[in-house]
């Protein structure tokens, strides 16, 4: 490596933002899917005990 890399902060910020965005988005999908499946299971259980 020759010399110093200048003005890297834009890339640093990009890296951290991308990391947060990807992990955050994926975590959100997991939580949402979990909630959907739990509700669906609860609704099904209710139908079965009710009927």
């Amino acid at each position, binding site marked *: 490596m020759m010399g*110093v890399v200048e003005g890297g*902060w834009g*890339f640093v910020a990009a890296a951290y933002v*991308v*990391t947060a965005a990807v992990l955050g988005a994926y*975590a959100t999908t997991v*939580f949402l899917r979990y909630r959907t499946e739990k509700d669906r*299971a609860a609704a099904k259980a209710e139908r079965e005990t009710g009927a």
Partner: protein
Amino acid sequence: MKEPSQSRAPQAAVALGVGLLLAGSYWGLAKAPGEIFMGDVQRIMYVHVPTAWNAMLALTFAFVCALSFLFTNAWKWDNRLEAAMEIGVVLSLLLCMQGAIWAKPTWGVWWDWDPRLTTTAVMVFAFGGILALRAFVDDPVKRAVWSAVACIVAFADVPIVYFSVKWWNSLHQAQSTPQTVSKAFHWPLRINAFGILFLWTGLVALRARVAALRLRNEVAPPLPERAPDTAGAPALGGAR
């Protein structure tokens, strides 16, 4: 099949992971000094290296789940396999993106064919393909067995891919991407590594529950603990 656990431990793990990541990133960004040659771009390493460790860990866990399923035929290992492969692909994809963001200011190109990153890119396609396979197989038993088989083959391929790419690239590139970090910077790295570790283990636990719940909808009750053991065939190989 047992009721999927209702414990809140996974959510706690995720919260802990996020907290650690915030702390480690703050330390790396605000407190740790800039590196001599690469200036502030080096700070990308505080998320890049932990992501690399965890991506490999997640895919290794997926491999363990695949083996476990083939030997036990227990559904829980298929659920975990699905979850582990998914997070493994996400982390690997993230790794490639971070790698590109690092490479541009450092090497002037978005991709420098670094063997580790190139292998990761191949793995994204390999394991992503297995996730696609799962979407096309309707029979849950076949889906589980085939994903496990494909996962084992793909994982066994990782060292071969790495070695061949490293060799292929060494003929062109004199230096490899330096990803070593000097001692002063260990703490942010470690904190972030544990942060991502807690984050993905928590997410895998939750995602496995999602898979378990979906499976119950698919298979007529009662859902057996284990997938039907076909003709008593042993886990690997064996004559029929």
